[in-house]
Structure formats: structure tokens, C-alpha cells
């Protein structure tokens, strides 16, 4: 097959298969143009875009975690608890070793070490989630509902419900400094997103992950070890949540058991808005990133228009419901126009071209 031909097919496939992505770009541009027109001086300014970029990483990482869990048809409700546990580990280590006073190379070294220690806790938390889901066989929503309480409880016992302070400059730079106008945390976020996209689209684990989500039975009969894939899935979500925790801690210069309690629902909203199929098999990193940026722009726009945060909550809910309703209405028309019913079984996604599997045509009730 000639390279040009393959390229054309690929683009046509993307345009057809990733409608949700195209629609998201439209939505993002629409929001951008709307608020820029309403408030050209304040919204459409470098400072404001910088503010938006500061807000994106933490919600983006949590949403990516939800997306990865949804790829396998699961969900991870414990992400915010894991994020806080990670932040508390790092903060406690900083306090224990008096790292606030450290300067220069020593501070950087300690920061790297303690961030890694925090992420190790996140991996362990994810591993336990994965153990419950993959080995014990608990439904993901229940397993993570339990561990959400458990991890949050551990964090509360740990600090007595108080926030921890005292972090070195080297650590705070991550959440507060910029390079060439871009926040460092945003650059880190983009790097993580790219790495995750490579993991999902270009590695055997990524392919297996989508296959398990699209059809667990078929995946098992194709020789995929579902247990190991699920275990790895929740390690990845834990790690992403841990990253969010580190960024939250460095941005707020503190760690607490009850930061970001509203982020869990927001992360699920963003993941769905990003075109992730909650029943498994389909989701893209780019979609989730676009959805995060869009919602952050709406949030910032609402702020500038002096609308209350409550009205932003309404907007979040409305966007989610309207997008889902439009999606269904659009799909119904398409399936009616397409082949007669009954003839099309659920097609497994082609590993080379991960377009949407047929599961989108008739969503089950739940």
C-alpha cells in the first residue's frame, strides 16, 4: 500500500471516526470567540491565558486518569483522595527533613526525591485499587468508592484534618513559575499527556487496554491477560492522580486531606465531554485535553463576566447534558441512515486505526 494512500485513509478515518474531536475543537473555538468578543480587553489577554494555563494541569491530569479507567470500562473515584495522599507524603517529608531551608542543588535533589516518594504512594494506592478490581473482581465503581473513603480517611488521620505547610522554593517553582510565558506545570502537563498518548496508541499495553474495554470476553479469548491489564490500568490512574496532587501542592504551597473535593465530579464531566465512552473502548488524550481547556476558558470567562461560581456549576452540568443529548440524537440519525439493524455486530477497534468501536450505536441504559 502506498504511503500517500495510507495517509489519505488515515485522515478520512480521523474525520469520520473522531467526530467528537472535531466537535470539541469547534466548541473550544466557539467559547474562545464568544468570550473574546464579549470581553476583548480582559479575556483576550496574555495574562488571562496564563491564568487559564495555570488551572489546566491539575484538572487535566485527574480527567486523564478518569479517561484511562473508562477506557477499560471502569471508573476511578479515588483519584482526588490519591492526589491528596501524594501531596501529604511529599509535604510530610519536606517538613521532616527541614527541606524548606535547603538551597541550590540540595533543594532540587530533595524535591525530586520527595516527589518520587509521593508518586510511589500513588502507585501503591493504584495497585491496591487494581488488586480489588482485577484479582478480587469488585466492580470498579464500588472498589474505588471504598478506597476513596479509605485513602481520604488515612489522610485525615495522618494530619488530624489540618493542612500542612512548608515547602522549598524549588518545589513551589513547579506550580508558580513560568518559562517563556508558559507555566512550568502546563509544560509538564503537556509532556505527561504526550507520554500517555504514546502509551495508549503506540504500545502493546495501550492496545490491550482498549481491547479489554471494548470487549473483555473477546480480549480474554485473544490471549490477553485481563487481570494484568486492569492492574496496570489502575496503577496508571493512580500515577496520574499523584501527579495532579504534586501540582496542587506546589501551586497552593500546602497539602490537605480535603483539597479538590469538587474535582472528582468535574474530572468525570471533563472526561465525558472529551468524548470518552464510559462503557469502555474509546477515549483520546487530545479530546480530554481540549475539554479541560474549554471548561477552564468557560470558568475564566464566567469570572470575567462577573457571573457567580454557582452559574459556572450550572454551565458545567448543562454542557455535559447537552453534549450527551446531541451525541445520542446524532447517532440515532446516523444509525437509521446506515445499514439495516441487526446486521452490524459490535466491531472490535482496529489496532492500527483506533476509531470508535460500534458500542456507540446503542448505549445500554446505565
Amino acid at each position, binding site marked *: 500500500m502506498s504511503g500517500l494512500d495510507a495517509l489519505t485513509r488515515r485522515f478520512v478515518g480521523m474525520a469520520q471516526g473522531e467526530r467528537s474531536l472535531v466537535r470539541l475543537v469547534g466548541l473550544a473555538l466557539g467559547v474562545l470567540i464568544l468570550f473574546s468578543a464579549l470581553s476583548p480587553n480582559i479575556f483576550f489577554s496574555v495574562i488571562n491565558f496564563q491564568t487559564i494555563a495555570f488551572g489546566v494541569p491539575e484538572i487535566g491530569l485527574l480527567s486523564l486518569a478518569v479517561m484511562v479507567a473508562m477506557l477499560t470500562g471502569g471508573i476511578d473515584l479515588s483519584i482526588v483522595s490519591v492526589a491528596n495522599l501524594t501531596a501529604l507524603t511529599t509535604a510530610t517529608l519536606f517538613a521532616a527533613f527541614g527541606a524548606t531551608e535547603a538551597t541550590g542543588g540540595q533543594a532540587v535533589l530533595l524535591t525530586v526525591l520527595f516527589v518520587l516518594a509521593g508518586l510511589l504512594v500513588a502507585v501503591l494506592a493504584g495497585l491496591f485499587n487494581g488488586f480489588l478490581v482485577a484479582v478480587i473482581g469488585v466492580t470498579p465503581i464500588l472498589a474505588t468508592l471504598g*478506597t476513596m473513603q479509605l485513602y481520604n480517611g488515612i489522610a*485525615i488521620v495522618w494530619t488530624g484534618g489540618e493542612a500542612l505547610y512548608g515547602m522549598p522554593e524549588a518545589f513551589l517553582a513547579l506550580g508558580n513559575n513560568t518559562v517563556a510565558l508558559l507555566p512550568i506545570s502546563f509544560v509538564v502537563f503537556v509532556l505527561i499527556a504526550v507520554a500517555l498518548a504514546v502509551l495508549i496508541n503506540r504500545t502493546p499495553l495501550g492496545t490491550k487496554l482498549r481491547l479489554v474495554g471494548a470487549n473483555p470476553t473477546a480480549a480474554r479469548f485473544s490471549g490477553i491477560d485481563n487481570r494484568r491489564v486492569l492492574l496496570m490500568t489502575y496503577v496508571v490512574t493512580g500515577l496520574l492522580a499523584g501527579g495532579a496532587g504534586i501540582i496542587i501542592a506546589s501551586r497552593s504551597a500546602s497539602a490537605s486531606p480535603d483539597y479538590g*473535593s469538587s474535582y472528582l465530579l468535574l474530572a*468525570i464531566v471533563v472526561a465525558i465531554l472529551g468524548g470518552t465512552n*464510559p462503557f469502555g473502548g474509546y477515549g483520546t488524550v487530545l479530546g480530554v485535553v481540549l475539554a479541560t481547556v474549554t471548561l477552564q476558558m468557560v470558568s475564566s470567562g464566567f469570572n470575567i463576566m462577573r457571573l457567580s461560581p454557582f452559574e459556572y456549576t450550572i454551565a458545567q452540568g448543562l454542557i*455535559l447534558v447537552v453534549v450527551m443529548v446531541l451525541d445520542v440524537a446524532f447517532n440515532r440519525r446516523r444509525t437509521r441512515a446506515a445499514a439495516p439493524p441487526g446486521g452490524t455486530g459490535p466491531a472490535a477497534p482496529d489496532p492500527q486505526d483506533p476509531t470508535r468501536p460500534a458500542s456507540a450505536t446503542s*448505549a445500554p*441504559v*446505565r
Partner: protein
Amino acid sequence: MSTATAPAERGTSAPGSRSLAERLRGRNNEGVLALTILVLVLVMSLVNSDFFTVSTLFSILRNSLVEMVFALGVLIVIISGGIDVSFPVIGIFAGYTAIVLARNGDFDPGVIGALLIAIVVGSLLGLVNGGLVARFKLPTLIVTLGTQGIFRGVLLAYVGSKYIAELPQSLGALSTADLITHQHGSTTSRLHVFIIPVVLLCLAVHWLLQRTMFGRGVYALGGDSESARRAGFPVVRLQVLIYVLVGLLAGIAGIMHVTLSRNANPYELAGTELDIIAAVVLGGASILGGRGSVVGAVLGVLLIAVIKNSLILMGVPGTWQRVAVGVLLVVGVSIQALGARRRARRHTVELESAEV
């Protein structure tokens, strides 16, 4: 009530009485749950003489009144194979709106009036959920996540975001109305009169689920919606009804919460949804639908209340409560999952041997 069956169960674990043991165990392990509560109560009574008192019983009951009504709604929706995370927001929306209406109109709607307002508001919000779920066949978790945000936003932005310290007089009077007052030494323990409507609601929902066509439909829908449709159940109407009912129950729970706490705070209740879902799941309802019972849900709520109360009496710092509930939930769902897996394996073996 069900605690009475638990000691009998231990006695009947002897061989030969399997059917009775299984019946006591309950279809959704209600018996095991009752036994757990009983053992916990026994241990706690031995450890701390303050535990086995009327006042402890009354305070546990009072703390679980509102949760129990919410749990009934959650139970129905979980049996039907769905999930609703918007019910606490619906509850506080209904309760708070009733108080605000009374304040703005400067009238006292009376207990019945306030209840009616809350029921109407709750049902209407439930109708929004039901309409979206049934009409567009959207995943229930996502819809109710979205509507939760919308309801909460509308409540705080347009109905009001202020704490109201004073209730209309009729509700204020009701908040201190006790069914039983028990004098023991210097302490007086009270059982709130709301225990009567809560028990009645439990019985009503039990009857609805076990004895009516609607209940059959809920279980059928949770088992398999396509099969339910082919069996002739009006799936769309059923789903709308289910969510309206959840909204209605949430409205009742909301006005009860406002009355019991003697103030109306629009920021309360939101965020408790997962705790109540946890209690219902602990009570044996399957998150996949088709299984669950009122007895189980009530026992689930009670178990969590008893554990929280025990921890306080044992002098465990309040910070440990969340860990304890988390451990309980993880262990509970793990045991259920392992049991389901064993059953499934036995079933497969039977099928395979039948095929051979």
C-alpha cells in the same frame, strides 16, 4: 426487627437445616448483615457499659432517619440498574425552597404544606432526571452528575445561598416533637416522632417493590432492560417513574433534614451521595441491578451508624471514622465479589457437566 432473626441463624447452622439457614441468610445476605450488627452490639456492650442503653439506641436511630429515606430512593434506582448521584442536592433543594417560599410569602405553610412543597419540587427535579434517562437512553451516572451540577447551581444562584436560622413556627415545633422520652438518671433520651413516617415509608417501598407490578418492573429492568421490554414492561414509563419516585423521596428526606437540624443551609447534604450509595450497596443491593431489598438497605444504613457510634464511645478519635467506613466498604464489597465469583464458577461447572 431483623435482629431477632440473627441469633436463630447461628443456632441453625447445624447440618440438615440448610434451607432454613439459607432462608435466614436472606437472598441478599441480609441475615449476615443483621448478624454483623448483632455481634458488634454484643461486643460493644461488653467493652463499654454505656453502649447498651436506650439513649444510644435513640441517638443511632435519630442520626439515620434522613439517611434511611434517601437510601430507599437509592435502593429503587440501584435495583433498576441505574445510579443517581443527584438525590442529596434534590433533597436540600426541596427542603430549602420550602423554607424560602414560606419566608418570602411571609406565611406558615404548616407541616403538611411544607411537605407538599418539598414533594412537588423533589418530584419535578426527579422528572428532569427521568426524562433525560428514559428519552435519550443516556448513562444514568453521567446524567445525574450533570443535573446535580445544574440543580445545585440553580439553588445557590437563584433560590438562595443564605443560611436561614429560623424555621416557620409549625416546623420549629415539629423539630422538638418526640415520640418517646426516656428518663434514665440525669439524662433524658428522646426518640423523634419522625421515626413513624420513616418506618411507614420503609414499609411502603417494601410493598411497592415486592407486591406491585411496578416493583416487578424495577427488578426486571435491572436484570436486563431489553428482556424487560420484550416481556411487555413499559420501560420508558417505568424509568421516568423511578426517577420521579427518587426525587419525591429525596424531597421528603430534605424537609426532614431541615426540620431536624432546625435551620436551612443550602450547602448541606451535597457530597453525601456516595456515603448513602455505600450503605445501600453494603445492604446487598447489586450495583449492576436486579438485586436488593429494603431490609438490606435499612440494615446497611444502621450498620454504618452503629460503627460510627461505637467508635465514638470507644474513644477513638473522630478522624478514624472515615477509615473505618472505608475498610468496612472495601471488605464488604470484596466478600460480595468473591461470593459472586464462586457462584458463577459453580454455575459454569454445572453447565459444562450438563453439556458433556
